[in-house]
């Protein structure tokens, strides 16, 4: 097995272009489990741990997204999301709090969840609920494209990345209303979701966001429920009055 350790993002993209089957690894909380169980033997591992910008986040204004947006580096660990972004991304922070154990939360990241695209990934329902204008930055030597979160999940453990693409960051609008996340597992901590649910109200756009995990081949929205609830809130004039 090849072990590639690029020092810069450009080197990483070049390495991925050259070895499209290389499996990116950062926290290793998912990849290493697969390797240890011998379920998966990639021809090469692409270690992203030397690329510091992946573990940073910034806030800004981006085209195609309304209001303030958090550009969350792919490898920012859940522990930091919960600690540093609970106000801006409350749904994701709540979801991050349910990931594995404290040790796992120190290593695991949203980029890993997206790369693995497991229907049980805890971040997915929160990302879906956060709005239709959540974008995954997919980068390659060919350039960067933005994949809307609704288009990202395409099957069980499959996403819409091209073989030469790496996840650089996720752009998530800062919450403009309440967000919640909950999941059901059969233990009170460190448990895989039997079912997870992300929920967000977006008063600015008068929309409702939902995300359901672990209940279908991909994470998915409850579209009819979103529409129903948004309409109900509008009919009763609750968007404007905030309840």
């Amino acid at each position, binding site marked *: 097995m090849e072990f590639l350790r690029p020092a810069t993002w450009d080197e990483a993209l070049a390495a991925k272009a050259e070895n499209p089957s290389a499996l990116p690894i950062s926290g290793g909380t998912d990849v290493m489990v697969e390797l240890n169980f011998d379920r998966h033997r990639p021809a090469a591992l692409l270690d992203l741990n030397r690329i510091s910008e992946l573990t940073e986040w910034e806030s800004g204004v981006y085209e195609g997204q309304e209001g303030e947006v958090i550009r969350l580096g792919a490898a920012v660990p859940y522990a930091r999301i919960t600690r540093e972004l609970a106000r801006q991304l409350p749904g994701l922070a709540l979801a991050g709090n349910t990931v594995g154990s404290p040790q796992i939360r120190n290593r695991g990241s949203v980029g890993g969840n997206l790369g693995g695209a497991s229907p049980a990934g805890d971040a997915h329902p929160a990302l879906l609920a956060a709005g239709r204008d959540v974008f995954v930055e997919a980068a390659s030597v060919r350039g960067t494209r933005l994949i809307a979160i609704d288009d990202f999940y395409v099957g*069980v453990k499959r996403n819409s990345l091209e073989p030469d693409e790496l996840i650089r960051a996720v752009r998530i609008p800062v919450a403009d209303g309440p967000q919640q996340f909950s*999941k059901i597992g*059969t233990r009170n901590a460190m448990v895989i979701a039997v079912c997870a*649910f992300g929920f967000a109200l977006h008063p600015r756009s008068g929309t409702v966001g939902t995300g359901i995990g672990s*209940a*279908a081949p991909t994470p998915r929205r409850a579209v*009819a*429920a979103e529409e129903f609830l948004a309409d109900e809130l509008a009919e009763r004039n609750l968007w404007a009055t905030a309840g």
Partner: protein
Amino acid sequence: MSTRTIRGEKNLQDITTAHPDGIGGSPLRPDGTLKVKGEFAYSSDLWHEDMLWGMALRSPHARARILSVDISEALTLPGVYALLTHDDIPGTKFYGLEIQDQPALAIDQIRYHGEAVAIVAADHPETARRALAKVKVEYEVLTPITTEEQCLNPETHGYVHEPHEYKGHASGNIVHQQKVVSGLGVTDEVRALADVVVSGEYQVGMQDQAFLGPESGLAVPAEDGGIDLYIATQWLHVDRQQIAPVLGLPENKVRLTLAGVGGAFGGREDLSMQIHACLLAQRTGKPVKIVYSREESFFGHVHRHPATLHYEHGATRDGKLVFMTARIVLDGGAYASASPAVVGNASSLSVGPYEIPNVDVIAIALYSNNPSCGAMRGFGAVQAARLRTQLDRLAAELGMDPVELRQLNAVSQGSYLPTGQQIDAPAPVAELLQKVKDLPLPPALDVTHLDVRELPGALSNTSHGEGIVRGVGYAVGLKNVGFSEGFDDYSTARVRLEVIGGEPVAMVHTAMAEVGQGGVTVHGQIARTELGERVTIHPANTEVGSAGSTSASRQTYMTGGAVKLAAEAVRNELFALGRTRYGWTGNDLSLVGGKVVSASEGVLISIADLLGDHAIDLTREHHHRPTVPFDKETGQGFGHVQYTFCAHRAVVDVDVELGLVKVVELAAAQDVGKALNPLSVIGQIQGGSTQGLGLAVMEEIITRDGKVRNPSFTDYLIPTILDTPPQPVEIMELPDEHSPYGLRGVGEAPTLSSTPAIVSAIRAATGLALNRVPVRPEHITGTLTPTHFPGAAVQSSQQPPRGAPNSTTPCAIPPQARTAAGPPPHHPCGTHRTHRQHPLRSTVFAPRFSYRFRYDLSLDPGTPDQHTPHAALAGARAPWHPHQASRTVPCHPYLMGPQAGREPHPNPL
């Protein structure tokens, strides 16, 4: 997590002696800091120059004939040093604790999923893995014998061990059976004496010891043709007794030294990789190390016997028990292991700590193609503890307080058990119950100051107080200490006293396996108490006589007792030396501060001066009082060495909508006779209680057609710190005159009563029958039924369960619990929404997404046809049909917990 309250602290002070590091003190454990810091050397850390790595090829089938094994291609792989099958075994091919029925490597047939077929030694684990992948085994797969019905009809379903190979104590697919009949037995006349009769069938799932240090060891070939084995085990000498004949070596050429043990709980009582490593070392002439992965560990050791128990209790109107019948069927799996002893305990302790004049019990252990089961903390008695459910139901029938009913029938010193054995030591059962009952209850759930970590679901954020109902439950247990039924499980200790650096030093040498129980610390305390300050502990090995097993709550009693005897002998020898040399005549000598002191004449001499260059080195054996085997037909006999008792009160919060449970507090009271190390005693009680908590609400190895479905800590769940509540402990110290220092074995009793206390509390919260452990969410919500499909849950779950109690159980929810958050929506009062019982081994899979969705949103599930949010959700789920999905997406994680039907899980972590 709130801080743990140890109410035992009060007792701690009471029972601490003046000598802080002698008995009664709680000196720091020598291994404690190292383990917490990750610096302790476990057996998996062993290393030797030029060592090879051993690995086993295991059967993917539960029952099969081996038609051929072709190792030729594997042998061509560079780096492979040896590849062995049973043909290569130089000695006898079978081993076993009591019944030698297990082949060291499979011979022509497979009896359980994971049975070892071949072993390899290679220069690297990866080479070993690749070599095993090249071994070609041709199997003829047979239908496994897995259910009680199949096992008991061998002529139809087959024999696990063909009659000509059968080595058990009975016949067919029964390994061992034991009856216990006392009083008048249970006849129609006796039944007529009872005003109230309750009966029920109960089930216990297969629990795993789940020790954290996987099986591992290092076998080093010696120049004399023997083997030195460094190994994590529970009993060095019985390992050796089983290993040597397979290697074709005399026992003295197989020398064992204990390596760092990462927990045991009974799971290391049987051999795992020992013989395999030795065979490979013998063949290659090189040191061979074997370390199991976590997955292999689940196949490499025996588990707790799953059981089906049918109990019938009769009582008078005023609550006195008149009779009890029990039929206890334990699934022993493919090989005998400790099944006979488990049956002995299950039958003789089936009655619990109660006086019942007329008893008729039979317990049997089956051979099956399920995983082998054997020793695990509290064995036999843990399974029989399901009778506590009966007592709750009886109390409900009688309209009595469950604790009062127990106290009314509790044994005490002088009581006779159904085996005819009189309890000849304190048995404060009623008092222990009273102690936990009198402890202040934890505060009620306060939804205004909420920490979700304190709620069912914890950080998963599934409730902020809605649907949460509190329940309180009690249980008390009866466990034997030491090996029973005529077994002389003596212990040996060697104590050497000599002067080192001008100071007297006592060295304690035993073969006791320190598996984490704190035995090394206690040995130091005993030697310090008997001989003085400075004590060293020699590594445990087979150079000294047997210490027996670190199991059955026996090590402090037995090997601790041996250390006491040897230390006393050394002290007496020291005094004799002085008498000879200096003509002391008094009989009032003692050792104080490194000096020989006479009560009448004061300080006589320092130990250092008395000993000089002389060393006193003495070995003593400690035997407990003899017991006898139980009569096969009546179960009569003085079968047990000592009894031990523990009571629990469990307080739980149940999310009745989601079926999630949070144990809020688990209080224990135990009589320990004498707490040699109070802190360790509390640790044992809290650890045992937690292992019982695991069995109550989550821990179960799931098998389907004999195959283990959840061999990982992703799918076999054990309690985390957020599942583990504060555990106040009350310690009683009523000395047993038959034991050293009056002590009583501690480690197992808490495991018996914590499980039923928690189940009883969940029952109090939900009113459900809960006849099976572990209690899983679907048992509480009633959502998993064989016929279930989305939308049909309510109807199907209202049918009475199969094997349901004959009598109607009145609502058991205490009024105060009902007010906590309103009555639970599915409370059985009136509707009796009880769950169906599932067959022991085949939990039926039924997806139920839409139902779950409703709960997820906490929306009203009662009006699905109206235009309500959950009806809208039904639209959302339409393209995703569960039945299709279960076929096309086999690895999808839609199952609740570790269940049958679950494929290896995509781990999202």
